[in-house]
């Protein structure tokens, strides 16, 4: 399901998505889009931010209130703070215009995969040579235990359970430091991520599992 006001971009999107979906629906305005999502209940919504008839954040919030499908945001704007607002409002991921078709397809597949396993929470997550045992709270690489601090484990668990989703700094902080007072410690989130990477990534300068979204947060790309 595509909600985008520019016809040429709609055409590009439809072509890019046709390989993964049997049916691709299109709407040119927020109002028409919301109606279509309600009546057709699509598996995924691609939502453009620059719609003529409504603010992107409002559309996102309204959809999220009753729609369970992943929402992927398309944005031509610059501002990281706006993307953070959208993700906090319930969007699952975003991609910036002009986007690469390959990247778009990869993001869409990651969201679909997560949506399909989301209903049956598993106790094991596998990525690369790693196996996470969520009940035993252990991470093994080729059978060998990798020692993580409690905060590093929680960070990795939160990211891996939400694989494919971009989590904002605030969302990650809320999940890992739940119950603690929100404060300066949030800035050390980045330091913990850096330490975690040094334990699990083969090359910290080219991370495969925990990917940085500059100015926004982090995304787990491990299982894709």
């Amino acid at each position, binding site marked *: 399901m595509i909600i985008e006001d*520019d016809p*040429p*971009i709609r*055409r*590009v*999107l439809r*072509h*890019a998505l046709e390989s993964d979906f049997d049916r691709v629906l299109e709407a040119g305005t927020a109002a028409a889009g919301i109606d279509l999502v309600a009546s057709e209940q699509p598996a995924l919504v691609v939502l453009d931010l*620059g719609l003529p008839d409504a603010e992107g954040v409002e559309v996102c919030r309204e959809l999220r209130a009753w729609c369970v499908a992943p929402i992927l945001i398309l944005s*031509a*704007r*610059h*501002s*990281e703070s706006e993307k953070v607002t959208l993700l906090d409002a319930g969007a699952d991921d975003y991609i910036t*215009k*002009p*986007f*690469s*078709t*390959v*990247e778009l397809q990869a993001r869409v597949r990651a969201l679909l995969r997560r949506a399909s396993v989301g209903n049956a929470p598993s106790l094991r997550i596998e990525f690369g040579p790693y196996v996470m045992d969520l009940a035993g709270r252990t991470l093994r690489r080729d059978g060998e235990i990798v020692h993580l601090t409690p905060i590093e484990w929680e960070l990795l668990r939160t990211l891996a359970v939400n694989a494919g989703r971009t989590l904002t700094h605030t969302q990650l902080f809320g999940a890992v430091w739940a119950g603690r007072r929100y404060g300066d*410690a949030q*800035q*050390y989130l*980045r*330091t913990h*991520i*850096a*330490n975690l*990477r*040094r334990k699990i990534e083969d090359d*910290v*300068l*080219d*991370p495969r599992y925990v*990917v*940085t979204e*500059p*100015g926004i947060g982090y995304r787990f790309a491990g299982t894709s």
Partner: protein
Amino acid sequence: MVMWPVWTLALVAVTLLLLSFRADLDKAHVILVFLLVILGASAAGGRALGVVLSLVAFVIFDLVFLPPYGTLVVRNPLDWLALVAFLVTSLVAAQLLYMARAQRAAVEREMAAREGERLKDALLAAVSHDLRTPLTSIKGLAHELSQDGDERAAIIEEEADRLNRLVTDLLDAARMSAGNFPVAPQPNALDDLLGVVVRQFAGRADRNRLEVSLDRPDELVIGMFDFVQTLRIVTNLVENALKYSPVDAHVQLSGGAEGGRMVVRISDRGPGVAEHGESRALDTAYGDTRSVSAGLGLSIARGLAAAQHGSVDYEARAGGGSVFTLFLPLAEPDAP
């Protein structure tokens, strides 16, 4: 300044009026009426007028309304209390009114500035949207064509990317010249910064020309910088280095900590900038021999570095080429 004679006259008129039935008056009547005049003067004419009138009224009160009349002598010692209390009250009132005014003026100025900033942001967002929308369909359609095997389509896609980078630089420059480039330095890992640079260049045909390394791979360097803006600096410098080096030459990007600062170096084998003089090189960036976008990139890099207490230096490289060095503060080492 027209307020000064007006309020002085008002004080004189009030004094004459009160004088005409002085015998029936209590001290409190005089004090309250004088205070009203001083409050009015402070509100209309400012602090200086209020203070001067307070002092004048103080003297008049003593001369005219406290017996013995016509002298500064005060017969009843308790009258001193009234006199001093009057002076203090009027001075404090003048000062309070002045502060309230100054505060309101500051709030108004700030609101005007914020409104201007909001308008600028809205305009830049609209320009950004209008320029990127056609670029998006050009890039997307070129990708479809390239899948049909047309090699020219790949070039269209890359050129669309190039145009997009230019749009980004132009918008950045517009923002910066408008003084609208907020930086929010936070503790960030050098690993993370270089990793994102690698990823940004990963999709490009010349990605193999970029060699990235850490000076000491075992050491975790945490700098105090704004991640997004610093990423812009490094990306701009790497972009320029790749663009102006011979097509088979590599560009080295390395990072570490030296002398209490975080350091990122970009070394190329380009033509160098020595012929322009080193300081000018950073201002106008390669002047006439190189393109506008390079100059834009460098001046943006420099402005952004300065905004977060850092700097960008240039040196000629031994054996030909340039080394650009970005210095940024390290984070305080109290991180858990």
